[in-house]
């Protein structure tokens, strides 16, 4: 187990006023528990302020938990932070977190020294990373001349400087163009193949779907769903939508289907000598029976509509399933 989180809670206390001081507590993370295995990509999804970044900050030794336990590589994130730091790294999305008055290469050489990477191997490592994130051409330019996407790519290189065993990515594709985002996804896939454990937060559902082995959906500090992307989609699927093409369809059969309580005909269009049906079915048994009946009318083909992770996410968040 690379990451273990048990009943983790973090409360932020805000003080207001000078004479009459008032304290307000905001529960950012509310007793969450999860585990991440070696080489797994685990995504934390949720609306802004749900507690994703706070969780990452606790795990990356930047924040103390109010209660509960968080361990990375078997070490307590608060009490044994020093033993963890050499083996982890983190990337927060956005344009900050690098020295703008230094060049990209100078930034990486500096962070390499902080991670005790020796002088002889740091130039090699820095050049490898610059090549990986496509900044080789701009390595000697000051970061203040970089575009938003270039800074983000430099952040990624910085986060990989120590070849971390566990990598925390907080909205890593924020500000990246589609090609840059695709390249980062490829980097994450390669890291995963190399056995790096990755904890990722993102608002890009497609990205989470492609990259993650498991997903936790977090809302108001609590995990409200946790499973593989496939199972999450199954979990919320209460109707099955299919689009079928058949040769013929008697009027009486269409009426029978329209009257059935577990079949909902969305549309029935005759086009270029064939009939196109769009149907919603109650469950898998109904679906299988329906397909059998369609074969009697010259079934030419059918397609089952898949729910996207975005559909799943919206339903889970809005309906708190």
């Amino acid at each position: 187990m690379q990451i273990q989180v048990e009943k983790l809670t973090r409360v932020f206390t805000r003080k207001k006023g000078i004479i009459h001081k008032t304290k307000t507590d905001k529960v950012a993370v509310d007793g969450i528990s999860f585990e991440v295995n070696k080489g797994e990509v685990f995504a934390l999804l949720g609306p802004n302020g749900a507690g994703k970044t706070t969780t990452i900050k606790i795990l990356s030794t930047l924040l103390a938990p109010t209660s509960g336990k968080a361990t990375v590589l078997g070490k307590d994130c608060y009490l044994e932070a020093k033993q963890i730091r050499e083996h982890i790294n983190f990337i927060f999305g956005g344009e900050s977190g690098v020295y703008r008055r230094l060049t990209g290469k100078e930034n990486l050489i500096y962070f390499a020294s902080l991670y005790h990477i020796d002088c002889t191997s740091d130039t090699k490592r820095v050049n490898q990373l610059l090549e990986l994130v496509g900044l080789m051409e701009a390595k000697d330019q000051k970061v203040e001349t970089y575009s938003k996407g270039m800074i983000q790519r430099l952040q990624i290189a910085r986060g990989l400087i120590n070849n971390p065993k566990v990598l925390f990515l907080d909205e890593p594709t924020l500000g990246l163009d589609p090609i840059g985002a695709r390249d980062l996804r490829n980097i994450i896939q390669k890291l995963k193949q190399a056995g790096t454990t990755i904890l990722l937060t993102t608002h890009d559902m497609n990205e989470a779907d492609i990259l993650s082995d498991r997903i936790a959906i977090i809302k108001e500090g609590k995990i409200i769903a946790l499973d593989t992307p496939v199972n999450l989609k199954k979990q919320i699927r209460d109707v099955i939508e299919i689009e079928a093409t058949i040769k013929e369809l008697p009027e009486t059969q269409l009426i029978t289907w329209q009257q059935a309580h577990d079949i909902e005909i969305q549309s029935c269009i005759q086009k270029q000598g064939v009939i196109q049906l769009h149907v919603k079915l109650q469950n898998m048994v109904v679906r299988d029976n329906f397909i059998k009946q369609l074969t009697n009318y010259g079934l030419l083909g059918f397609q089952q509509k898949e729910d996207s992770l975005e559909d799943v996410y919206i339903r889970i968040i809005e309906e708190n399933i």
Partner: protein
Amino acid sequence: MRSITQTMIVQMKNSFARKMFQFTMLVQPIIYTCITYFLFKQTKETNFGAYVVLGSGLLSFWSCIVFSSAGDIDRERWMSTLPYLFASPTNFTKIVIAKILGNTCIGLFPFVISYIVATFIFQSPFTIAHPLLFLAIVPLVILAFVAVAFIFAAVFTISKKGGTLMNCLEYPIFILCGMAFPISVLPDWIQPISKLLLPTYAVDILRESVLSIPDMQQFIYKIMILVGLSLVYFIIGYILFIQMDKHVRKHASLEVF
């Protein structure tokens, strides 16, 4: 060791790149030299050049220390680089000391500027009464200023109001520590505060080694206080850094928001 030298280099590059720092390091010593020159010109002091160079050099040196070593923590917080330094395997205290050393190195440059302006432009006489003692004392004085900056850096890491504190500290320390004129001219009730401040002794012994040492026993006594107090400041700073490590993680003060 490499992390220390790299931090010093990065610190110097970052500081040099800032307009405010360039002003503090290059222009401010010239202004201070002019002011102190006209202040001391009318005195009967024959070696008034020493007053001018030391006074203006120390004023600028302090500005560099307070605006950078301490203020840089706040700057790192605004650049969001502070969490990355804090969570790196290199001890954060070590990083801060390296930053202070980097600034101290470039903070010595104003002395050179003040010397050039005072001796070559204003033709002020400048002689060092006890050159060997002066050379021996300079490292102790630098260490004393590093000790002060170390405490400030710890406080500024804990507090998010570093910028305000920094601005409030520059001028009172000039006056309280006798950087431009002796503390004996200050009201009696203020002088005990000066006696608690490390730069007071640093400035005093530095000035005596350049001008003249009226009482050698007293001079040695002041050096001992300087060394002892520096040690106390370092211990306080170290304790603050240990506390800071817990405090920033409990109160989330590594970032601006």
